[in-house]
């Protein structure tokens, strides 16, 4: 089995050649890298999250969906809040209105802010709200009552497995003193909202609210 030095040289050159080839392969990967990724679909993972939500367009085929409305009040706000429109059978791609009614049961002026939670959460990017009371703060004097409107469309490219959508709104007290106060189980409403509600979140409300939540968790 022991072989002569020329045989060693031949084997050594062969293996050295493999090493040099691998060095070259490293550089060859640079130009081919993006093609490989494109061919294997490696960089498409972010695609759903980066989609741009434009105005509802009518081009994909509209299909019927059921939208239900739900209303809640966080425990720190003595308000009454209920959906007037409870359920809508609509077609995707067209605008619809839903109404809610809210009343201040307390004895002083309070300012609330509504946040939305959409179920199933996968449908969240497909609910396009063009006008919503949740975009603004809502002051109510003692005993005052108000009618709130929501104008929205469900985008036609909503994945076909979702045909029932629930929009659940919760009114929160935005007064930092009200939220900093430790409170019990009512916190549970607000947890999910962090994942789903989208536009124009009140920063002061959030920063004031978060420490209280951490403790609760």
């Amino acid at each position: 089995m022991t072989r002569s030095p020329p045989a060693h040289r031949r084997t050594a050159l062969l293996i050295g050649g493999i090493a040099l080839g691998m060095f070259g392969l490293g550089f060859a990967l640079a130009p081919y890298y993006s093609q490989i990724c494109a061919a294997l679909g490696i960089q498409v993972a972010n695609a759903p999250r980066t989609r741009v939500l434009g105005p509802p367009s009518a081009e994909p085929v509209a299909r019927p969906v059921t939208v239900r409305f739900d209303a809640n009040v966080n425990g720190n706000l003595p308000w009454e809040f209920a959906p007037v429109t409870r359920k809508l059978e609509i077609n995707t791609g067209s605008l619809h209105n839903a109404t809610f009614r809210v009343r201040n049961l307390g004895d002083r002026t309070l300012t609330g802010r509504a946040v939305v939670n959409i179920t199933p959460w996968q449908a969240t990017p497909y609910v396009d709200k063009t006008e919503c009371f949740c975009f603004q703060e809502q002051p109510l004097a003692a005993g005052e009552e108000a009618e709130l409107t929501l104008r929205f469309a469900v985008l036609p490219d909503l994945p076909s497995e979702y045909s029932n959508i629930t929009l659940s709104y919760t009114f929160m007290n935005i007064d930092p003193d009200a939220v900093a106060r430790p409170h019990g189980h009512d916190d549970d409403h607000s947890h999910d909202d962090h994942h789903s509600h989208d536009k124009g979140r009140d920063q002061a409300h959030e920063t004031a609210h978060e420490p209280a939540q951490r403790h609760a968790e």
Partner: protein
Amino acid sequence: MSTTASALHSEHEHHPYGWRRWLFSTNHKDIGTLYLLFALTMFFLGGLSAMAIRAELLYPGLQMLDPDLYNNILTNHALIMIFGAVMPAGAGIANWMIPLMIGAPDMALPRLNNLSFWILPAAAMMLVLSFIVPFFPGGGTQVNTGWTLYPPLSVQVGMSMDFLIFAIHLLGISSVLASINIIVTILNMRAPGMTMFKMPIFCWAWFVTAFLLILVVPIIAGGVTMLLFDRHFGTSFFNAAGGGDPVLFQHLFWFFGHPEVYILILPAIGALAQVIPAFSRKPLFGYKSTVGSMLVIATLGMVVWAHHQYTIGMSLGTVSYFMIGTILISIPVGLIIFNFIATMWRGAMTFETPMLFATAMVLLFSFGGLTGVMLAVIPADVQYHDSMFVVAHFHYVLIPGAIYGLFAAVFYWLPKWTGHMYDEKLAKIFFWVNMISFNITFFPQHFLGLAGMPRRIIDYNVIFAEFNFLSSVAGLIYGFSHLLFLYIIIKAIRGGQQAKNKVWEGATGLEWELPSPPPFHSWETAPKIK
């Protein structure tokens, strides 16, 4: 042909002395010794930086380091341990043992062997310089990237990164040359009758490791070369603004980085396949399945690299492939572990120090493998990613997996190398102190990671204080226990009970037919293999 032979013969006649013996050495035993001494030196350097890290993490808040220096030391620890300590230690044992085990007079390419060692001190100097140049005027910022050297941060680091890049080039050249030598030796220099499947597993392990090195080290050399070009020559391999992609570096790095862990572990597994049968007084259970498993590990290990990058945004199909591939590797690894256990089963086992380390490796490496499977699972990994859990995982793999295997090998063959028995009592004390303090150091880090402590961070939330304190105290004990290891080795080199040819009564293999220590030139006439 005859002139070459006689020239070689006359060269063998004179026995060089003094520094010439070492600097111009073409003798596999001397070069092996140089490799081992080099690895031991770097092991203590890397250990020193580990001690600095653990001392800093003793309490929350900043103690003695600032964040950049901390990350510099962290990078230093990883690179010195991997490239300076574990790889050269494996190469040193390979140099010493492979020719003895296959009945060859020397390595196939002795001069190349000399070159591949003597590149190392130069590379080590570059490596150490890369950590200290920032402290000199005009030295730029510190290497604060961690051993992964990800751009864009690594493009912005000062000139110390250039030292590091060239150090990696030199280390890579050294590894590739040593691997070429090992492959040629194993293919061409086996004694007559020593077929590939009669070869000791240690030689097989190094054969597979050498091929892995040949295939992946050039890739990282290419990757850091691109980094160098991006830094100085205006290219945009990794610069998104110029059409490049920093994620490309991650792919190149982990294409090398993942097989690298098998490069560190396979020689240790090979050593274990010698040690466990010797102290169980039974032949190895499942020789061929062990060899086959190593080949499967090497092959699968080359194609699962992106499990280090689950969070970069790959499609579901791609991450699923990497997840399944990674989990598949646990099958051949598990097979090897079961072969070791089956070898021990009903064997006449005794627990001398090499066997203690071997047993600890089988047990603790399995723990590390188990957390590895946890990390391979995508949804879990997204949570564990870059946490102390990962730190605990890879230290459980690398310390028992690589270093305990090397310790087992060192204690197993130290009497053969030095001709003296080491102090068994001290060695056992070293094992117990080392093994217990290792566990107390790294086991709590699992909990820290699961509770949310990130890795590579100098400061931490006070809720992590207790476990970090425990980890640091045990870590310092663990670190300083290696001084005992140093003392045992020095004591064995300087003297002690004369070792017999066959140091361990259960040991088998050609190396035990030679005297201890073996003569300067061994197997000049090839042994007969039955």
